[in-house]
């Protein structure tokens, strides 16, 4: 009995350790790097610390600019992606569409194939349309590619809402439109939020499309990070990585507040 519980405990500790290593490990590495002046292998911590790189990042406007650009693109992408996904998801969830599988597959395409050639190709098309080096070009690319997340998540949510709940409203005289906005949509909000978070985080960290469509004229944060670390400036890249995390964390915190309140309780009922 006792030995058994010790074994369990050991397993637990090991498990927690592994999880920490996987989840927190990379972050800790980045955090340390951002303060390191000299850090050579095999030292566990840097030989010399400095705040120089943090100061440098904030002195250079381009880091904050690119961060703001990323934020703008991500928010716009969320807006478009969700707006398109909601009606489409409702149709997928409630109606038998002709060629449903093919349609869903079409939405999956940008994610299913290696993204590099897709975005390089898209960049050429956008180039002709004057969308290269343009924020809207990236927003369009991100919207297209992120539809698969938002659409699938929201479709699943709508599908999980019992048809009875809609029929009860219809039965009491509500039009389809009214049923959707008073019953289906409020009940689907958790899924919409989950989709929004996913799209936001994905867009904030997306590199390929941002690079091929935006660079060199405009640089999103991940692209800037890439150029920094490609120049072997681990410190600058780390600082940007940390700064890049802040809007994502804030976004998740805000959204999580909504999630908690009443909707979570609602969806099971």
């Amino acid at each position, binding site marked *: 009995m006792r030995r058994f519980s010790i074994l369990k405990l050991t397993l637990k500790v090991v498990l927690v350790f592994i999880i920490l290593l996987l989840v927190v490990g990379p972050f800790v590495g980045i955090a340390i790097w951002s303060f390191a002046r000299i850090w050579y292998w095999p030292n566990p911590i840097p030989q010399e610390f400095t705040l120089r790189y943090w100061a440098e990042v904030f002195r250079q406007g381009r880091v904050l600019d690119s961060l703001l650009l990323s934020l703008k693109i991500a928010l716009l992408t969320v807006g478009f992606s969700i707006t398109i996904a909601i009606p489409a998801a409702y149709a997928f969830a409630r109606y038998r569409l002709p060629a449903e599988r093919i349609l869903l597959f079409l939405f999956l395409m940008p994610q299913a194939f290696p993204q590099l050639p897709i975005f390089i190709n898209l960049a050429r098309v956008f180039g002709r349309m004057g969308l290269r080096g343009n924020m809207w070009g990236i927003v369009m690319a991100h919207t297209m590619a992120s539809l698969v997340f938002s659409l699938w998540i929201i479709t699943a949510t709508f599908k999980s809402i019992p048809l009875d709940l809609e029929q009860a409203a219809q039965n009491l005289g509500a039009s389809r439109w009214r049923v959707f906005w008073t019953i289906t949509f409020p009940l689907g909000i958790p899924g919409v939020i989950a989709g929004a978070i996913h799209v936001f985080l994905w867009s904030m960290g997306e590199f390929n499309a941002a690079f091929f469509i935006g660079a060199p004229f405009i640089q999103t944060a991940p692209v800037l990070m890439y150029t920094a670390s490609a120049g072997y400036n681990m410190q600058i890249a780390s600082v940007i990585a940390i700064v890049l995390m802040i809007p994502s964390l804030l976004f998740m915190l805000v959204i999580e507040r909504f999630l908690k309140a009443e909707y979570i309780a609602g*969806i099971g009922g």
Partner: protein
Amino acid sequence: MVVLKTEGLKKYYGDVKALDDVSVEIKEGELLAVIGPSGSGKTTLLRSVAGFVQLDGGKIYIKGRDVTDLPPERRNVAMFFQNYALWPHMTVFENIAYGLKVRKLSKEKIKEKVEWVLNFLDIGHLANRKPSQLSGGQQQRVALARAIVVEPDLLLLDEPLSNLDAKIRMRIRFELRAMLKKLKIATLYVTHDQEEALSIADRIAVMSNGKILQVGEPREIYRKPVNLFVADFVGVNCVVRTKPELIKKLGIVVPEKGEELSLVIRAEEAILSRSNTSIKKTSNDLLLKGVIVGKLYLGAKTRYEVKLQELEDTIFINSEEEFQLDEPVQILVREGSYFVYT
């Protein structure tokens, strides 16, 4: 005045006939119960009237208005869903007020009506709760309140008591009937529970395989079932399949045709006694001899398995009396408590 009239409703799901030429009528203030086993088409009938089923034929009239092709939201019928279908993101008050808001009533009027129905159903104290905070019985009342508050032409109840536990169900039967009578609202009531239908309905329609087999008042359905299915479905029965000669020997007039006949015995009305007790019987009563071959204690009563002497079959009968295994007994079934069908 006729509130609901359906004419020859048809609905096919592939080869299955869910509705096979179904015509029913409900008069003002009348409660029609549709009973039948699962798959008999009773729920399809209810959902057709609500407008949720695309019919393959037939017409539906509500207060003389042809609603066959109208969408559900324009029929002014209110449906009670079997699983209540309360909206989890709204309070009880909001749930009930929904239909009134859709009807564009003023805020004061809505408040007044909702409060009336909350009091009528004795759930005023629940107004600000969410459905997830209610017990099953409370949810049932809220669902009912939501349906009746809009004063529909017709109320559709889909198994309204089936999700309640047995003890509450018995009590609610009385309440529900009293309430519907007070409101004088025409009601189509679907249930698989024949006893519930007998106790609540003004008239009963018995369905099987998409067809209506018989429509009548509860007593008529119980005492004069038109065929074997109705006889067996209503009440607690034993059905004995046997040869006509054997039944003739018991002194019953039997239909001429048929190799085999079905004798339906209302087991709940059969009287079990020791074979030596003398019994007053008329010529139309049925007296069967048998031997106890099994028993099951039920509390107030005991359930006996009796092997019939004349009919080569066993039947189950409850009795308050105590009998021993292998004891010879007689079973008295009065006229009107047994039926013979081909």
